């Protein structure tokens, strides 16, 4: 990357400063929430707590990476929870019923997610139905397909390799800091961050979300880009399904129920705008972390689950309201 050009106006300096605050907003929010809970229960500060938080964020965080693309493009994907479930079932099915190697099983699960995502993309672009309705439909379709594939019962797997993705590290493995699943999420996030920032696909994604008509006028192959977006989002959901499989040790057709809302909330807390054109990968991961921190923190406080739920919901709304307020100041 070439050097940032100098813009010597004081207004520019202020705008840059505001931009930085805007970008760091979700991170600051995370620090505040984490700090608040840690002040109450110092156990939150331990490496073990960080590990737990990561493990519990991985499933939602991985799917949120893909969802970020969808939301930046001005779309939405409600079928993410179902795609996570069918991917975990597909992985387990390949391992147990077809006896493939764990690596092939993982690839199969990711592929299953990608196929579902492409299916969404095809209907959205060919039948010209809005994403909300299409994915509301496929939420049920895919969930049903997952149950059918698993014949309505979880499929247990015994691959140590896969179940190790999101398990607490043993004493001999402390040097890894995070379990493999955590590193996979970070690597995926880095890849998608670069994709959004440095590739044509990334620019076209922002352009479609910002103004689809302009994108079309400028010769952007809008339909093809959308297929990519939904396909990639599906693949992320597929990887998220692998994490679910790893976590539960079984392909569960009723797993990840309602996760689509967590995933969307993560993206939105991280600065994504449901009207498109805005959002960031880092923000989405941070958004997912914020929600886990709240849950873990509430747990450590010994709060009832219903309290946790209310707090989570309130924080979502407050976070987004603050974000919009900041934006209004900045422009």
């Amino acid at each position, binding site marked *: *990357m*070439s*050097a*940032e*050009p100098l*813009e010597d*106006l004081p*207004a*520019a300096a202020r*705008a840059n400063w505001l931009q930085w605050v805007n970008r760091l907003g979700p991170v600051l929010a995370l620090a505040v929430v984490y700090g608040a809970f840690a002040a109450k229960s110092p156990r939150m500060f331990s490496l073990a707590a960080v590990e737990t938080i990561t493990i519990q964020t991985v499933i939602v965080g991985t799917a949120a990476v893909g969802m970020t693309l969808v939301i930046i493009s001005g779309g939405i994907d409600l079928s993410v929870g179902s795609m996570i479930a069918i991917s975990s079932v597909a992985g387990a099915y390949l391992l147990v019923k077809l006896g493939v190697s764990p690596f092939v099983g993982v690839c199969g699960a990711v592929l299953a997610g990608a196929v579902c995502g492409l299916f969404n993309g095809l209907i959205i672009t060919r039948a010209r139905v809005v994403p909300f309705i299409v994915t509301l439909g496929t939420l049920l379709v895919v969930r049903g397909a997952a149950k059918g594939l698993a014949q309505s019962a979880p499929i247990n797997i015994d691959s140590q390799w896969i179940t190790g993705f999101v398990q607490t590290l043993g004493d001999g493995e402390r040097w890894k800091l995070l379990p493999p699943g955590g590193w996979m999420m970070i690597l995926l996030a880095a890849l998608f961050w670069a994709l959004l*920032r*440095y*590739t*044509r696909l*990334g*620019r*076209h994604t*922002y*352009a479609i979300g*910002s*103004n689809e*008509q*302009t*994108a*079309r*006028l*400028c*010769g*952007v*192959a809008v339909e093809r880009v959308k297929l990519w977006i939904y396909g990639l989002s599906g693949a992320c959901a597929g990887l998220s399904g692998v994490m679910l499989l790893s976590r539960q040790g079984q392909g569960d057709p009723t797993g990840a129920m309602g996760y689509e809302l967590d995933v969307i909330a993560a993206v939105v807390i991280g600065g994504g705008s449901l009207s498109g*054109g*805005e959002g960031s990968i880092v923000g989405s991961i941070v958004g997912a972390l914020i929600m886990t921190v709240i849950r873990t923190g509430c747990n450590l406080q010994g709060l009832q689950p219903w309290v946790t739920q209310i707090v989570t919901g309130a924080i979502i709304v407050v976070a987004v309201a603050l974000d919009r307020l900041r934006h209004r100041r900045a*422009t």
Partner: protein
Amino acid sequence: MAEGLEVASGPGAAAPRLDMRDVHKRFGATVALAGVSLTVESGEVHALVGENGAGKSTLMKVLSGAHPADRGTMRLDGRDYRPRNPLDARQAGVAMIYQELSLAGHLTVEENILLGMEPHTLGLIHRREVRRKALEAIRYFEHPEIRPDVPVGRLTVAAQQLVEVARALAVGCRVLVLDEPTSSLTRQDVERLFALIQRLKDQGHAIVYISHFIEEVKRVADRVTVLRDGKSVGVGEASDLTIEQIVSMMVGRTVQDLYPRSPRTRGEAVLEVQGLAGIDKPVSASFALHRGEVLGIAGLVGAGRTELLRTLFGLMPVRSGTVRIGAYYGPASPTRRWAQGAGILSEDRKEEGLALSMSVADNMTLSKLKGFGPLGLVLPGRQAAAARRWVDRLDIRCRGPRQRLLDLSGGNQQKVAVARMLQHDVDILLLDEPTRGIDVAAKATLYKLIDELTCGADGREPKAVLMVSSYLPELLGVCDRIAVMCRGRLGPARNAADVTEKDLMLEATGHGDAA
């Protein structure tokens, strides 16, 4: 409230209907208004003209209560008028009709007219009363299609505008402000609007008429106030002022060489169109566009000029006919057209032409994200460097290539849209209303640029320009040849030197000699 329709007009009344004196307004460091005075009598149409950025919209925002004035006085019928917000202003009797109409499309005409002031008892609406008041408000309009029970969304733009006027009258407005009311109307509708304005005037309403079209202003207004740089620089009887006088007051200098014209050499035909027809419009269009020329397309709004450009560019389906661009025939799509070396400038900058929430650099490079890094990567730094070149060349006022377009003025936004075609380095430029809603300085930049492109300045190959415009002096000034479109049919192209505004207007309205 219905009494508002018969506003007391007082020829003998001492105080003017609206009297604004020495109004000042600044936003931070920017001085938007630096002493504006405007006096409107009842029964008068008072035109307000000025370049974009001269302060017209700020003045109207102060008048309508959206912004408070920093200094100066405003009086309405001799009484102090200090609106705290737009609702306050409306209740005091100042109604604004903006370019973008604010009607609820799914509600009927009568529901719109009485929106927010429905006669009711405990929330139950008196439907008959609503109907009576609505009919009373629309009885002046010679538009039979405006029936009280039709959803507003089904009416034409012209009719919708009248519904908005009716709404203003129903609340009993004393000052009616029309902001660019004719910009989206057909010729006939403009005539009907003028007739309506005349009637409202006769009833004693005070009307402030804002427009870019000086010819119109001269026709409809009694007096004209000219704004420049946030000051009122002149006021006079519309009948005494010539168009040239008004324009030179607006720009603060005499308009000379607005349309530069270097010697151009006409080259080979790069775009050939034979019998092109779209689904609805165009009905038929044939022409050839050559390198080194500007071909203008005149016509009324709705004649199918925009549709012609969009069909050419693959944004609308083709029914029949052939299009050849360079050596290419075959189906059109925007992607292919850009690849074939053609670019389009949309007439609708905000909705289609530009992604306003993206940066200057992103907008300029969107059609061709190539050559900004190895392996097909797009490096933001190189993108910005490419954009900076055009920012300098076209004198685009912005903080830098990474600034979002939202904060730029209309003229600067338009320059960004044009820069996209230059960055792409297209040979054929399709320009749809390139100077709509931009100030005179930006217009001059564009005219100069078009001239440079077509004459092949600095040793570059001359380009071909197809330009649609509703402003005839501009077409006559810029183009080499002009063709007129009327009801979807494109007439023959003629040398711009051989035609007059009158010829073009006659042909556009279907009264031209078939020559």
